[in-house]
């Protein structure tokens, strides 16, 4: 496999993976700032506001017409939360120009368009505020985006559990910000937020695909980004939630809605930082507990007791949390709780068979080898390394996974502290 080549300049990093494996090309620009209350909602609106138009394509519709013309190039923006960072993402993908007659300039046109979202936004004539019609649209749509979080019950319950575990910390801020903030946002507020982001953000620019001269490409990209991103150095690495600031709790937060199925979510603090030595062990521990159909949760909650269709666990590496979640009948809450507790205790006391360990490691190695076939996974994995200040490659990570023993798992599981349980259930 070809390797990612990185070039740095101040707060800017350009990462290029030149490969002829794909028939498509992928770009991602990840712009990260510290999560904080003050800028929260503005920063969350910005990526979507950028998609309302640029000076050259001054409406969302004209922008879409442009990307459709560029052979259905997918251009999208989003806001993400990665631990204590708020990350604005612009990404694009297009078919490889080499295989389409008459598409020679496709790559450079897509790149130009992607950069222009940030560098040539559509402004009012004053030059100091975003177009007011764009702002109006973006805010209306963002308000609906926030509202719709409530509608997907599985995700909603999961998020509520995380928020309950991070109360009072920046990690507990919602990624889309607050609906109440939206009313006060104007074109000039948002434009100053935009400038503040450009001044302080770390930016990672990725390109994966056929790039004949990767060095020249990186040089050009740094030259293109430098005048806009002014930060002199990269920000410190992301750390897990400071567990000294939240007290472990076995309290159950209950919310009632008119639903058929209850959603049980239990959160543990792992006390393991992403990128630390113990991180691969935590990944294996999570696999044994609940990431696969051979895992303890699936086997016991679903297969043995027929209590759920899904019963899984997920590691929130950047937060240092592990979340267990299952969809169950409301009257089966107590029974499910005790089965879950038993599974966690089993891992903590080392009741893990050789088979469970091997199955889990093989399944993880399979996942991480497959990730190399997926441009977006390659970028995501690399970016997590960037954020945590530990950009060890996927190969090293796989090696670390394959060395994990039951004793390691037991030791890391011993650090788990229950931090919140959230139950969304029916109105009974």
């Amino acid at each position, binding site marked *: 496999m070809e390797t990612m080549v990185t070039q740095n300049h101040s707060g800017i990093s350009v990462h290029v993976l030149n490969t002829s494996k794909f028939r498509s090309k992928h770009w991602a620009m990840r712009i990260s700032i510290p999560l904080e209350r003050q800028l929260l909602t503005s920063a969350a609106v910005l990526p979507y506001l950028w998609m309302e138009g640029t000076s050259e394509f001054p409406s969302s519709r004209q922008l879409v017409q442009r990307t*459709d013309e560029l052979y259905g190039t997918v251009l999208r923006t989003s806001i993400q939360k990665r631990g204590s960072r708020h990350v604005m993402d612009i990404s694009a993908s297009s078919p490889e120009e080499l295989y389409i007659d008459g598409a020679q300039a496709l790559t450079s046109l897509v790149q130009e368009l992607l950069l222009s979202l940030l560098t040539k936004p559509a402004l009012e004539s004053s030059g100091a505020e975003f177009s007011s019609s764009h702002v109006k649209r973006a805010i209306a749509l963002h308000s609906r985006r926030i509202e719709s979080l409530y509608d997907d019950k599985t995700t909603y319950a999961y998020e509520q559990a995380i928020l309950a575990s991070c109360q009072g910390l920046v990690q507990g801020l919602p990624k889309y910000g607050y609906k109440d903030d939206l009313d006060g946002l104007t074109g000039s507020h948002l434009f100053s937020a935009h400038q503040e982001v450009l001044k302080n953000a770390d930016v990672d620019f990725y390109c994966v695909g056929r790039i004949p001269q990767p060095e020249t490409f990186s040089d050009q990209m740094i030259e293109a980004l430098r005048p806009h991103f002014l930060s002199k150095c990269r920000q410190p690495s992301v750390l897990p939630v400071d567990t000294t600031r939240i007290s472990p709790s076995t309290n159950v937060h209950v919310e009632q809605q008119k639903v058929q199925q209850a959603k049980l979510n239990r959160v543990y603090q792992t006390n393991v930082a992403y990128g630390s030595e113990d991180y691969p062990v935590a990944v294996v521990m999570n696999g044994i507990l609940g990431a696969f159909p051979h895992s303890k949760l699936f086997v016991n909650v679903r297969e043995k007791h*027929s209590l759920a269709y899904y019963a899984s666990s997920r590691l929130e590496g950047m937060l240092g949390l592990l979340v267990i979640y299952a969809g169950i009948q409301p009257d089966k809450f107590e029974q499910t709780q005790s089965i879950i507790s038993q599974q966690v205790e089993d891992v903590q006391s080392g009741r893990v068979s050789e088979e469970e360990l091997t199955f889990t490691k093989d399944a993880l190695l399979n996942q991480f080898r497959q990730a190399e076939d997926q441009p977006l996974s390659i970028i995501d994995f690399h970016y997590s390394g960037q954020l945590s200040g530990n950009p060890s490659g996927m190969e090293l990570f796989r090696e670390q996974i394959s060395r994990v023993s039951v004793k390691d798992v037991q030791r890391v599981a011993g650090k788990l502290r229950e931090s919140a349980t959230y139950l969304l259930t029916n109105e009974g």
Partner: protein
Amino acid sequence: MNRREYPEYGVDWCSERLDNGLEVHVLEKPDFHQIYAMFSTRYGSMDTRFRLVGMNDYTDVPDGVAHFLEHKMFEEPDGDVFQQFAQLGASANAFTTYDQTSYLFSSTTHAFENMKVLVDFVQNPYFTEENVAKEKGIIGEEIRMYDDTADWRCYTELLRAMYHSHPVRLDIAGTVESIAKITPQLLYRCYETFYHPANMVLVVAGPVNSSRVVEAMAENQAKKSFQPFPGIDRDFPREPVSVREKSVRHNLAVRQSRCLVGFKEKNLPTNGSDLLRQELLTGVLLDSVFGRAGETFEKMVDDGLADSTFGWEYEVTRSYGHAILGGNSAHPEALATAIRQHAERVLESGVSNIDFERSRKKTLGRLLASYDGLSALARDVTAYVLKGTHPFDALHVLQSITVEEAFARARELFGTEHMSASYILPVHEQAQPVMA
């Protein structure tokens, strides 16, 4: 053996029909790590009344049997198939649609061993009173999960409104009540009808040698014996062109309303190549008329009727077909009105050539880029083969469709007499009066 290179997709394709009728397609992607295989039968939730050709009586089955069978295939006398895949470092899964059931694995090692596990477990049913009873709890939770999922509910309620009697109106997983009636005997009956190799297709994609895959599968199948396949009679009730209900409303615990509008297909294709052409042509039509690059979508957003969840899809088979449009909406009934009015406008003013060409270009580019994902590649090839079309004809067909055909398609598809709307509204909220 059929064989051809498709450099535009980076795929070498090869296919062979084995002696027992099983079709095998291999898609070589030499630079990839992943091996993705999918074993499918032409059998889905809409096959509720059927018989083998030559038999006197039809069998009627409760809703949700095909999906129940899919779950139960994973159980073997010596344990759970997931464990066998786990031993070989593979992850396995399965899904059921209205007209297809597929079993799949994804791995990066042990390609041939995994293929053998896949084919062997699907060809070895094991149903007992006990394991059938156990599954009812699990599938019951799956059904309840979907009942709480607003987008899915809006979609299935729309199908129920559009169709009078065609079984596409039934939920794929059935209901808690209907699955209660399922027995091991019933599962065996369905299995024996639909899981004959001649009714199935195996697709393998990844860094594999196609001749070796075909050989290994031929050898595997030669060891098993099957009765000759007489063919399957599916009895679908006569479905009128009109819709059953113009609109339906349901309340759920959501903050945002949903609106989906469906146009029921009058013109059902009778062969694979017509089906492919109609599917691609209608897709380009819908994108050029209702896509995000159009004035109508822009206006619907400006008027607060639509947001970024707005989308469309088109599905057509030999026995049913429909186009569905919509998404979240603050004014769901006004959105349905806007969709209907725009469809009527298109019938008067035609389809713009500029929009059509742009949509064609977009669809073409998206198709080319999508086959970098092995699961998308294997799923598409499977679906095309099951529908009786050549798996790589889409590009060529896309290049040949015309704006005149698209307009003719619009005249067939857009008509208020075969249009339904489905609304999901927040609990305690009644439908708003039409604003537009």
